[in-house]
C-alpha cells in the first residue's frame, strides 16, 4: 500500500505526533498561568480524546502500511485502546500525585505522548527496522521520564541503569536483526518474500546456503539471531534474565510513570513478541489456528523463560518491604505468566494474553494508584506505611485488597479470568511439559498470595502507626472505584473480554 493511502489508516499515530509537539507548545504558552496544572491536564485529555477519536474512526481492516513497515489490523487497534486506557489513567493520576511539579507537567505529558507514539508503532511494526525504531523510541523516552527528577539521586541512578541495560539490550537485538537480515536478505516479517513466507516454503531454504556454508551453521545462526532479538524484547517486558533493571527503575522513577511503565511498555513488548514469533515462525491455518513452520522450538524456550521468570519474580517479591519494589517483582512474575500464554503458541494462548493484559492494566495501575495515595500521606512506600489503612481510608484499602486478590488470581476478579484462560491454553496443548509448566504456574500463583496477603494483613490486621486521618483526593477515589468495579465485573462476566480478544487475534486475518 503506498504511503499516501497508508496515511489514511495512520491517523492515531499522526495525531499523537502532533499531540507531542502541541503539549510542548502549550507548556510554553501557559508557563505563567496559575491554573496551568488544570489547563495542561485538560489539554492532555483533549489530545488523548482526539487520538481515541482517530482510533475509533480508523476503518477496520488488515493491510500493510508504508510498504510493509507497519501492519494495520485489529491486533494493533486492540493494543491501541489498551495503551490509551493506560495513558488516560496516568494523566488522571499525575496532577495530584505531588511527584511531578506543575512547572514540568507539560513536559511530562509531551514525553508521555511521545512514548505513546512509540508504543503504537511497536504494536503494528512488521519490519525489523520498524521494530527496532519503535522499541528505541519507547526506550529513549522512558530513560528521560525515569530520570525526570534531575535532582533526585534515586531517579538518576535508576535512569543510568536503565540506559545501560537498555542500550546493551537494544544493541544485542540489533545485532540479532542484522544476522536475520543476512539470512533472509529482507527485513520484512510478513508479506510474500518476507521472513515468514521464506521459512514457510521449504524449497527456499536454499537461501541459507549463500549466507553461510550450509544448513547447520545457518540453523545455529538463526537460533542465535532469535535469541538476540528475544533479549531485546525480554528486556522490554522485564523477563529473566533481562529483568534486573526493573525493580530499581520502578523504585527510582516517579510513581505515576512507574504505573504506566509497568503496564504500557510491557504490553507493547508483548505485542512485538507475539507479532515477531507468529508472523515469522507460525502459519495460520483456516479457522484461526496456528501451526509451526519450522522445527525451531521457540515455544519451549519461551516456556523455560516464563517458568524461571515467574518463580524468581514471586520468590524475590516475598522478601520486599518497599511496595514499589514489591510490585516491580510482582510485575516480573506476571510477565512470566503472560509468557506462558505465548509459550502455548496457539490462538487461545495469545487471546489469553490479551485478556490478561486488560485485567492487568486495571489492577496494576490501581495498585500503584493506592501506593501513590498512601505515599502522598506518609511520604513512604514501605509496607509499614500501609498499616491500619483499613481504618484510615477504608475505601482505598478495600480497593487495594480487590486489586491484590485479582493479581493473585482469585475469583471473582478479573485477574482470575486471565489466569484461568492462560492455564487453559497451556493445558490444552497437553503433554507432560506443558502440564508441568501449568503446575509451576498455579503453584506460583499460590505463592504470590503470600506477599500480596502481607499487604492486606498490614492494612486490616495491624494497627496504624499514627492516627492522622488520611485524605484521598476525590479524583483518586473516583479512579479507584472506576478501576475496582470493572475488575470485579469482568471477573464475574468476562464474555466481553473474550469478544475483544477474539476480534483482535486469530480471526479471519493473519498477522
Amino acid at each position, binding site marked *: 500500500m503506498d504511503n499516501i493511502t497508508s496515511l489514511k489508516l495512520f491517523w492515531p499515530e499522526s495525531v499523537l505526533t502532533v499531540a507531542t509537539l502541541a503539549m510542548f507548545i502549550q507548556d510554553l504558552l501557559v508557563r505563567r498561568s496559575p491554573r496551568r496544572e488544570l489547563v495542561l491536564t485538560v489539554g492532555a485529555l483533549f489530545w488523548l480524546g482526539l487520538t481515541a477519536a482517530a482510533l475509533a474512526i480508523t476503518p477496520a481492516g488488515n493491510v500493510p502500511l508504508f510498504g510493509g513497515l507497519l501492519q494495520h489490523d485489529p491486533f494493533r487497534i486492540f493494543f491501541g485502546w489498551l495503551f490509551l486506557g493506560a495513558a488516560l489513567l496516568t494523566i488522571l493520576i499525575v496532577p495530584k500525585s505531588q511527584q511531578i511539579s506543575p512547572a514540568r507537567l507539560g513536559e511530562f505529558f509531551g514525553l508521555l505522548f511521545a512514548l505513546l507514539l512509540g508504543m503504537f508503532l511497536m504494536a503494528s511494526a512488521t519490519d525489523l527496522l520498524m521494530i*527496532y525504531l519503535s522499541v*528505541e523510541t519507547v526506550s529513549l523516552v522512558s530513560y528521560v521520564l525515569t530520570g525526570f527528577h534531575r535532582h533526585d539521586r534515586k531517579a538518576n541512578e535508576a535512569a543510568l541503569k536503565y540506559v545501560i541495560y537498555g542500550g546493551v539490550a537494544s544493541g544485542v537485538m540489533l*545485532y540479532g536483526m*542484522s544476522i536475520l*537480515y543476512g539470512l533472509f*536478505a529482507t*527485513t520484512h516479517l510478513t508479506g510474500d518474500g518476507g521472513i515468514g513466507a521464506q521459512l514457510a516454503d521449504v524449497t527456499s531454504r536454499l537461501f541459507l546456503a549463500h549466507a553461510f556454508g550450509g544448513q547447520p551453521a545457518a540453523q545455529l545462526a538463526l537460533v542465535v539471531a532469535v535469541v538476540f532479538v528475544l533479549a531485546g524484547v525480554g528486556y522490554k517486558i522485564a523477563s529473566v534474565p533481562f529483568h534486573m533493571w526493573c525493580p530499581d527503575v520502578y523504585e527510582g522513577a516517579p510513581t505515576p510513570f512507574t504505573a504506566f511503565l509497568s503496564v504500557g511498555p510491557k504490553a507493547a513488548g508483548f505485542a512485538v513478541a507475539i507479532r515477531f514469533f507468529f508472523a515469522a515462525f507460525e502459519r495460520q491455518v483456516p479457522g484461526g489456528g496456528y501451526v509451526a513452520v519450522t522445527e525451531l522450538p521457540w515455544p519451549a524456550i519461551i516456556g523455560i523463560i516464563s517458568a524461571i521468570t515467574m518463580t524468581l519474580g514471586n520468590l524475590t517479591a516475598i522478601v520486599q518491604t518497599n511496595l514499589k519494589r514489591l510490585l516491580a517483582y510482582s510485575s516480573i512474575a506476571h510477565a512470566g505468566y503472560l509468557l506462558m500464554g505465548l509459550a502455548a503458541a496457539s490462538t487461545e494462548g495469545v487471546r489469553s494474553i490479551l485478556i490478561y493484559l486488560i485485567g492487568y492494566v486495571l489492577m496494576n495501575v490501581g495498585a500503584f494508584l493506592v501506593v501513590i495515595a498512601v505515599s502522598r500521606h506518609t511520604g513512604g512506600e514501605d509496607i509499614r506505611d500501609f498499616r491500619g489503612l483499613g481504618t484510615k481510608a477504608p475505601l482505598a484499602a478495600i480497593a487495594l485488597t480487590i486489586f491484590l486478590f485479582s493479581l493473585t488470581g482469585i475469583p471473582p476478579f478479573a485477574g482470575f479470568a486471565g489466569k484461568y484462560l492462560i492455564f487453559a491454553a497451556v493445558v490444552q496443548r497437553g503433554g507432560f511439559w506443558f502440564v508441568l509448566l501449568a503446575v509451576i504456574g498455579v503453584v506460583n500463583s499460590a505463592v504470590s498470595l503470600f506477599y500480596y496477603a502481607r499487604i492486606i494483613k498490614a492494612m486490616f490486621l495491624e494497627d496504624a502507626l499514627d492516627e492522622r486521618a488520611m485524605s484521598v483526593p476525590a479524583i483518586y477515589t473516583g479512579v479507584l472505584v472506576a478501576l475496582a468495579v470493572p475488575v470485579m465485573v469482568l471477573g464475574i462476566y468476562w464474555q466481553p473480554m473474550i469478544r475483544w480478544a477474539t476480534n483482535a487475534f486469530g480471526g479471519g486475518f493473519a498477522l
Partner: protein
Amino acid sequence: MTSIGLPHFLIVGAALFALGMVTVVTRRNAVGILMGVELILNAANVNFIAFNHYVAAPGSLTGQVFSIFVIVLAAAEAAIGLAIVLAIYQTFKTIDVQETDLLKE
C-alpha cells in the same frame, strides 16, 4: 589468492560486537560504557552493510538505510546517556560517595 569476502566483514562485525560487550562489562567509566554500546551498534551496522552488498538482491538498499537509522538513533541514545551522566554528576558531587546506596531494600 583470496579476495576480501563476506566472511571478513562478518568477522570484523563480530569482533566489534565482542569488543563492545567487553567494554561494557569491564569499563568503570559511565562514558566508557556508553562507548561500548556504540561499538555494539556499529558492529550491527557493519553486518548490515556487508549483507546488503553480498546477500541482498542487487539494487536493494535496505541494509544501508537500516544502518543510517541506527547511526541516528545511536546519536540520540548517546545524547540522552550523557545527559543522565551529567545529572548524576550534579547530584552526586555534593554528597559523600559512601552514602549513595539508595536503591536497596
